[in-house]
């Protein structure tokens, strides 16, 4: 019953078909495409985790890449330097990212909008600078390569299915969070923080919880990146990636749940395609972003759902 309320039967069928296609994909595609689709899912998950606070919370999280990077580094460092079983890395990476998110949130959450974002970005730069320079521990600007991955998911197919399963589970959990009472209150804060405060909502506390959840799932995406690539590097924490993740949310549509997933996948796929023809990928991305801001500010999925919604409303009106 609850499921029916959350998801319409038509979108349920669509999701099931998409999942079936993704599950069968490795048996049909070459190694490179399996890798690419896995990376699309990882990046999509990352963008979706940002959208929890950006789209649903209305918070300018300008340093989200930090949690992605820290999740990945924590998992890699635990395995390589700590010598623990890699599975522990997968478990603890997101926890470390969430803890960092809590710490940063405690410092920043009293600020609003642009000030919040700028303080986040300066704290994020601090973390990046430490990772970038601490050669003896993090490998500095070279990063770390050949991070051991559990044998079960060591092959490209294994990694792909691991990424697929974790992504689907995370998306489901995030979907439930967004539609939970907490998620509803969170969205009400986005729409009107003063009113939410007035009806007795603890705004700061909700925002802090939202940040921790987003940081956690950002960390999950980071550990998945380690699975796919087997390496980590400081660019994963750099602020330009943080802004790129915002572009992904914008591209897919940040007022829809699956928009950022689509946006993340699109950016990864576009980069792969454009990269074949030209070295000037960032220029292409910049132009895409400009066009988006001018013509499609609600994103691709947002655009289509708005049109569908309008169509449905017209039909119901008849």
């Amino acid at each position, binding site marked *: 019953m609850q499921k029916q309320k959350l998801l319409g039967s038509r979108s349920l069928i669509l999701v099931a078909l998409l999942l079936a296609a993704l599950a069968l994909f490795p048996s049909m595609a070459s190694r490179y495409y399996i890798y690419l689709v896995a990376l699309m899912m990882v990046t999509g998950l990352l963008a979706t985790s940002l959208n929890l606070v950006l789209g649903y919370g209305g918070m300018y999280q300008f340093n989200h890449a930090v949690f992605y990077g820290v999740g990945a580094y924590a998992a890699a460092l635990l395995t390589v330097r700590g010598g623990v079983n890699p599975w522990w890395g997968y478990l603890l990476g997101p926890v470390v990212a969430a803890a960092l998110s809590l710490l940063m949130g405690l410092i920043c959450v009293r*600020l609003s909008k642009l000030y919040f974002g700028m303080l986040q970005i300066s704290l994020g730069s601090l973390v990046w600078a*430490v990772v970038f*320079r*601490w050669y003896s521990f993090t490998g500095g600007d070279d990063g770390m390569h050949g991070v051991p991955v559990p044998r079960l998911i060591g092959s490209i197919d294994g990694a792909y299915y691991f990424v697929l399963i974790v992504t689907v589970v995370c998306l489901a959990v995030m979907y439930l969070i967004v539609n939970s009472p907490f998620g509803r209150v969170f969205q009400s804060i986005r729409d009107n923080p003063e009113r939410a405060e007035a009806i007795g909502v603890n705004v700061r506390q909700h925002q802090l919880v939202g940040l921790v959840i987003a940081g956690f799932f950002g960390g999950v995406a980071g550990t998945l990146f380690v699975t796919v690539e087997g390496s980590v590097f400081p660019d994963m924490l750099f602020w330009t990636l943080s802004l790129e993740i*915002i572009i992904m949310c914008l591209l897919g549509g940040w007022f829809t749940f699956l928009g950022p997933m689509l946006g993340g996948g699109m950016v990864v796929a576009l980069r792969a395609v454009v990269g074949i023809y030209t070295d000037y990928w960032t220029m292409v991305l910049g132009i895409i972003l400009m066009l988006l801001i001018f013509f499609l500010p609600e994103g691709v999925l947002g655009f289509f759902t708005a049109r569908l919604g309008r169509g449905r409303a017209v039909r119901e009106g008849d």
Partner: protein
Amino acid sequence: MDSASHITLAALGQQLLVGLSRTTILFIVSSGLSLILGVLRIPNVSHGSLYMIGAFVTYSVATFIGGQTGFWVALAVAPVAVGFLALAVERGIFCHLYEREHLMLLLFTFSLMLVLGDVVKLIWGSDYRSLAAPPMMQGSFSLGGMPFPRYNLFLLIMGPLVAVGLWALTNKTKIGKIARAAAVDREMVAAMGINVSWVFAFVFCLGCLMAGLGGALVAPTQNITQGMDHAIIMEAFLIVIIGGLGNMWGALLGAAIFGITDSIGILVWPQFAIVFPYVAVTIVLVFRPKGLLKSTW
């Protein structure tokens, strides 16, 4: 023992002066950013790209003309060229977006940064360039037994000159006063019959010109490379924030904090010198989240 502590003191003094000449560059770049933030309320992420373009144009003009005059001509040409580029972007694209929310404006300037970065790669290639200081600025002189580059002294003189010039422009001229009024209440300024859109264009242009000037001045002190834009823009943003958004003296104070902690960091713990300014910024922001001096927001 005694002489050792003397050397350290001299080294400290020397590092301080190096930090202060770095402050000059940081101040010039971030004062432009602060101006745009204060009046237009736009976090201009492409500011670093304009700084990089300023440096590359300086390199090209200076090597094309060559000799003593080359650098001085370049120092005049580069900021103006960057200013015109900014004017074209502002009038062509940017002025249609002022009604959008901050995040969209920020993302737009980010897209501009992405495009300009590749434009520089297209024109100048991915190799780094280096430019010698003009002959009269080359070499160094002795300062308490420690060598101090002449060019850095030039920077130390330029910093206050630019600060005073900018102060005079915003406080003593009519257009400056209008710009400051527009920062506080743009509707009221518009109601006085002033074309606010052109005031914005002027301020944007001036702010970007400062970025170009910073790039021109930094050209002889470091390698001119791709990626200069990423490094400077984050520093400039943090400086503007800790100083107080839109406050020019705040930009000066922030730049001093950034430049000096960086140079002291190099002396104390070279490997983590890069971390020192970020720690300083974080400490400032934890205690004064809206910056040290009064913001115009």
